[in-house]
């Protein structure tokens, strides 16, 4: 009928206007030719379902029962053609809502049990009880109970995590003790990208440059999350997948050694200018309060979601190594100045670096210069421990480091065999970041070992 009337309108513009308005006015569903009475209700129910489900999943209390019933109910409601389907759909929804409310209240009283899933049983207990859950998903944005908003607008995919965890300790023989597919920690980065100054007249440039940066990071799959200068949090790669943020890296905690943190840690990057942080530049000048505020909320959410230990929340310079030269600090993102307390964490610069204490990595004078003439406390402690280990073995520090260096390279070769090559150094942040970030960030070549030598 619309076609018949439309054909009588001579003007093409008028005909298009008529056809569009007529087809919208009678609300005939072009998808199946039936009246689309339940279209809007269907969408509302889907939203309700998603909300309930997300909330329960976040609390670790969702059973298959209510989820399955709710889906069945929604299917009945979405495609009703007879009265019995409508009635049955309503009944199922009622059951689903009752169960959801019951589980929801229990979830509020009980500690998460891990849902009986083997992977969740492995979750390390966080030091303090965090309670952050997904409240709402609006389009491509997520809202969490602590106020965190995450945009999935720039989401891309790499591949699922799969990595080996090794035993730790200078005396112990390093061996693979587990294989995992969930993140164990967080690495804080900086983009050191070119940013226009924050001035009213630069609005357009600020928008363009911001988008160019996030587009670049997405294309290179550099981090899991980006926090821009306005505090907006973008999820670039899902937490369940690896990203190319860490390069050659190692970290150890609680008897476990992680090599290649692309696979085992989540990368969070702050949008900053080149050399935004350094001996002569206070952190507060390079990073905005909005970024720290968002980083705190994001850290809370991720720690709650994956049971991440406080001590596994580190900065890039703490984990980055150059295995060929046995030097730490190949990347110097925060230059030992990350204000852990601003993101709700203890000062992890006090932590021992396994790279130095157990594997004999050291540092050179450019490293010390980058830090403003003084290494952070954890490096000093690690150096002492390294000396002690050497003494226990009746070896000179130099000999001990050589021995450990050979062991580390052997371990790297083993990791390369079991980890997809692209997630190691072939697609390293080293290479990707250079084209966008300042050369200061990437000390591609450390000079000859001097100053700070462990003796």
């Amino acid at each position, binding site marked *: 009928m619309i076609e018949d009337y439309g054909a009588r309108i001579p003007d093409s513009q008028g005909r298009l206007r008529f056809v569009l308005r007529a087809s919208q006015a009678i609300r005939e569903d*072009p998808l199946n030719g039936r009246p689309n009475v339940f279209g809007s209700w269907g969408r509302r129910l889907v939203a309700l379902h998603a909300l309930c489900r997300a909330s329960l999943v976040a609390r670790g209390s969702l059973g298959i029962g209510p989820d399955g019933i709710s889906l069945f109910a929604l299917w009945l409601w979405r495609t009703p053609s007879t009265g019995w389907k409508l009635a049955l759909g309503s009944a199922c929804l009622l059951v689903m809502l009752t169960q959801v409310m019951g589980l929801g209240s229990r979830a509020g009283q009980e500690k998460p049990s891990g849902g009986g899933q083997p992977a969740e049983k492995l979750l390390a207990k966080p030091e303090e009880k965090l309670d952050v859950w997904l409240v709402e998903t609006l389009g491509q944005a997520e809202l969490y109970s602590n106020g965190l908003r995450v945009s999935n607008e720039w989401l*891309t995919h790499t591949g699922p995590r799969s990595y080996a965890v090794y035993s730790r300790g200078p005396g112990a023989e390093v061996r693979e003790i587990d294989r995992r597919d969930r993140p164990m920690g967080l690495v804080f980065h900086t983009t050191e990208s070119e940013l226009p100054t924050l001035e009213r007249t630069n609005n357009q440039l600020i928008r363009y440059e911001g*988008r160019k940066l996030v587009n670049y990071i997405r294309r290179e799959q550099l981090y899991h999350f980006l926090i821009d200068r306005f505090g907006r949090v973008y999820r670039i790669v899902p937490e369940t997948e690896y990203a190319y943020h860490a390069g050659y890296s190692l970290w150890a905690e609680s008897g476990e050694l992680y090599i290649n943190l692309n696979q085992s840690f989540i990368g969070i990057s702050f949008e900053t200018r080149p050399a935004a942080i350094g001996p002569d530049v206070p952190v507060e000048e390079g990073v905005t309060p909005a970024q720290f505020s968002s980083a705190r909320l994001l850290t809370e959410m991720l720690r709650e979601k994956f049971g991440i230990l406080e001590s596994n929340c580190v900065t890039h310079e703490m984990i980055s190594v150059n295995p060929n030269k046995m030097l730490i600090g190949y990347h110097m993102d925060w230059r030992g100045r990350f204000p852990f307390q601003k993101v709700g964490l203890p000062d992890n610069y006090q932590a021992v670096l396994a790279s130095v204490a157990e594997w004999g990595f050291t540092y050179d004078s450019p490293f010390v210069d980058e830090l403003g003439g003084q290494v952070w406390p954890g490096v000093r402690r690690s150096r002492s421990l390294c000396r002690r280990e050497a003494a226990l073995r009746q070896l000179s520090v130099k000999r001990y480091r050589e021995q450990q260096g050979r062991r580390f390279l052997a371990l790297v070769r083993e990791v390369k065999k079991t980890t997809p090559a692209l997630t190691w150094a072939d697609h390293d942040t080293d290479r990707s970041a250079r084209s966008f970030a300042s050369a200061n960030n990437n000390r591609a070549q450390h000079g000859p070992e001097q100053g700070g030598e462990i003796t």
Partner: protein
Amino acid sequence: MSKKNVKGLDLGTSRIVVARHGEKGYQYEQELNAFVEIPYSRITVKAMEQKGIPHRVEGAICYAFGRGADQFSNMIDGQTRRPMYSGLLNPNEPKSLEMTEEVLTKMCGKAQSGEKICFSVPGAPPRRESDLTFHQDTVKQMLEELGYKVMSLNEGLAVVYAELEDDSFTGIGVSFGGGMCNVCIAYLGMSALSFCTVRAGDYIDRSAASVSNETTTTVRLHKESGFSLNGLSQNSLDQALSVYYGDMIRGFTERLGQEVSRTKKLPKFDEAIPVVVSGGSALAGGFQRELKAALKKVSLPFEISEVKLAEDPLNSTAKGTLMAATLEM
């Protein structure tokens, strides 16, 4: 508001077309979406100003864009650069944003009070959804900066608006452009399904140039000078073009089959629906015949009544966007 207060914009990988309402119907202005970098000299700049070639001076470098890019690239034996790639802003071109902004400013001009513009957007390429978001938002920003009230329209749907009025805007609109092939299945003017494939004109040029040892420019010029898919290949270049045209057409029909079998949103068409093709790549002789033959090999849940070439293949997308913008008046 007068009809003069609206514009349609076809922002394509290889060409940009602006459509306006004129005294004698629709009016179009076209520009090549490419630029070339040349050393700055006052004489060159003056010559460009005299000839009305859009350009931009940055220190010791001058960028000539649009049709001027082709002329200068031949003169200086340089390579033209593209602000867009595969239908979207080119992420590998550092001057992409500036050049796009420059050419939009030149072609669209500052908006009059309350002036509206509708620009075409491609379908989301597989795994590049956020690139489309970036493209769409950035172009929107640029046009808003010029003072327009901005809306966007799927390129395939724009072809439907422009060409299928006799079919109540029901059918399949396909734009075979330079960077992409955009498809929209529409029912009474509403999009039921849209998608895109990235094998289009540029793909044909690149591939044919690669196997025939020619430059892409030579291939493009040959293609545009009356090449025909008649099966009688005169030389290796014709042979290569035929092969890659076939590949593009096959890519489109196979994807069409996959998409309609996958979607649950397809309306029930009571009658056979037409396919209308537009864009520079659809201009080759025998293209419709080849496409019709390829469509017959694909299982579709509806019948195809005809495969027709758009009345004005190079301007139909711009016309469709202008119609959409006019609707909003």
